[in-house]
C-alpha cells in the first residue's frame, strides 16, 4: 500500500478546488464582457437601421387621381358585405320591435307561440 503524504494531498486538493472557482469566475467575466459587447453592437446596428446615413431627397408627390380615393379602395366584396350587414341589422331591429316590443309584453312567453308568431311575421314580409 502506498504511503500518503496527507499534507500534500489536502493542500493540493484545496488549491485545485479553489482553482475550479477561479476558472469558472474567469469564464463569467469573459461571458459578461462578451454579452456587453454583443448587445452594444446590436444596439448600434439597430440605430443605424432606424436612422438612414444620408437624408433622403423628398420624393415627388404622385399625381392626384381625379377619382374619389376612398370609394376606389373599397372592393365590390367589401361593399356587398357592408350592404349585407346593414340589411341584417335592420331586420333584427324590425324583429325585435315586433316580437319583443314593449307593447307585446303581455303576450305569453310560451316558446311554441313565440315561434309561430315569428313565422307568421316572416310570411307577411
Amino acid at each position, binding site marked *: 500500500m*502506498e504511503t500518503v503524504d496527507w499534507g500534500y494531498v489536502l493542500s493540493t486538493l484545496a488549491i*485545485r478546488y479553489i482553482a*475550479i472557482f477561479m476558472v*469558472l469566475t*474567469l*469564464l463569467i467575466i469573459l461571458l459578461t464582457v*462578451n454579452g456587453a459587447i*454583443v448587445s452594444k453592437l446590436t444596439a448600434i446596428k439597430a440605430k443605424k437601421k432606424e436612422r438612414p446615413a444620408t437624408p433622403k431627397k423628398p420624393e415627388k408627390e404622385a399625381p392626384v387621381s381625379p377619382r374619389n380615393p376612398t370609394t376606389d379602395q373599397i372592393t365590390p366584396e367589401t361593399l356587398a358585405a357592408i350592404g349585407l350587414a346593414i340589411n341584417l341589422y335592420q331586420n333584427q331591429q324590425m324583429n325585435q320591435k315586433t316580437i319583443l316590443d314593449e307593447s307585446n309584453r303581455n303576450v305569453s312567453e310560451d316558446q311554441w307561440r313565440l315561434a309561430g308568431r315569428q313565422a307568421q311575421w316572416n310570411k307577411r314580409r
Partner: protein
Amino acid sequence: MGIEEFFQIFQNIVFQMGIVHLTLGHVVMWAVGLLFIWLAIAKEFEPLLLLPIGFGIFIVNFPLAPLMDTPHALLRVFYHYGLEWEIIPCVIFLGLGAMTDFGPLIANPKTMIIGAGAQLGVFVTFIGTVAFGFTLKEASSVSIIGGADGPTTVFLTMALAPHLLGANALAAYSYMAMVPLIQPPIVRALTSKKERRIRMKQLRPVSRLEKILFPIIAFTLIGLLIPTIIPLMSMMMLGNLMRESGVVNRLADTAKNALMNMVTIFLGLAVGATMTSENFLSPKPLLIFGFGIVDFAICTMGGVLTAKIMNLFLKDKINPLIGSAGVSAVPMAARVSQKMAAAEDPENHLLMQAMGPNLAGVIGSAAAAGFLIAMFR
C-alpha cells in the same frame, strides 16, 4: 478406436462446454447483470446505458466466452478502441455539445459559481476513499462519480484507474438515474420554505452571435488553463458550435442522434464487459457504490450551500433549489429543481434558471477531472 480414446474425446468435448466451468461467481454476476436489465426495462433507470451495460455483464460472465480474453475478441475490441483510446467519452461529449443550448448559462453567467461549488463532493470523497485504502489514482476516479457526469467519469477512470471502470461507470450512471430520489430530501433539509419560494428574474434573451461565440471563448479559456481536459471540452464545444452556427445542421443532427446512439451501444457493452466475476466480486466495488452515493449527496449540498452563500452578496436573490442542479446530471437535476419549486409555489418556473448551474456543472466536473488527471497521471 479404443474405449480409452473414446472417453478422452468425450472428456474433451465436455471440458469445452461452459457449464463445466460455471462457478458461483458467474451466477452472481448473471444476477447483477439481470438486475440492471430489470432496472432499465421495468424502472426505466437510465435505460439507454443500463440495458447494454447489464447485457454486457450478463454475456461476459459466461464461462469460456470468447468476448474479452483475446486481443481480437469482440468486446475487447470495443473496449480497446472505444475506451482505452478514450474515443467514446469524447464522441459522447460531441453529441452533448450538439444537444445543449447554453443560452441559460450565457444569460446568467454568475450561476457558473454554483457549478463550481457542486464539485465539493469530489474533493471530500477523495479524502474518504484514500482513508479507506484506495490508491491516489483510484481515489480520484471514484471521487468524480459525484460530479454526475458519465463520460467524464469514464474518461478520468480510463486515465487513472482503468481496472475500476465497470464499478465507477455503473455507480455514476445508476446514481444519475436516482437524482429524483437522492436530491429532494437533502435540498429540503438545507433550505427554508421562504428560500424555496424565491422567484428569480426572467432570463434575458441571448443573441445568436453570443451563442456562436460561447464555444470559442469557453474552449480558449479552458484549453489554456486545463489542457488535460482538452479532448473532452474540444469535442463538446465543436458539437455546440455546429448546433449554434446553423450552417451544418446535418452534422449536428448526426452528432446528437445517430453517432451518439452508436457510441452509447459500444460504451454500454464495453463497460459491462469489464465486470467479470474476478474483477467485480471484491469489497472495492461495494465501497465504490457506498462512496458514490455519499459523493453525490455532498455535491448536492455543495451546490445548495454555494447558492445560499451567493445570496448573502446578491441584490437579486437566487432560489437555492437551483443549487442542487449544479451536479451535472443534465437535464434531470434541473427538472428536480423545477419540480420542487413548483411544489412550493405552482407559479414559480425555475427550469431555465436551473439549466444554468446544470450546464456549469458539466464544465465544472470536467475541470475537476482535468485537475485530478494533471495531479496524478
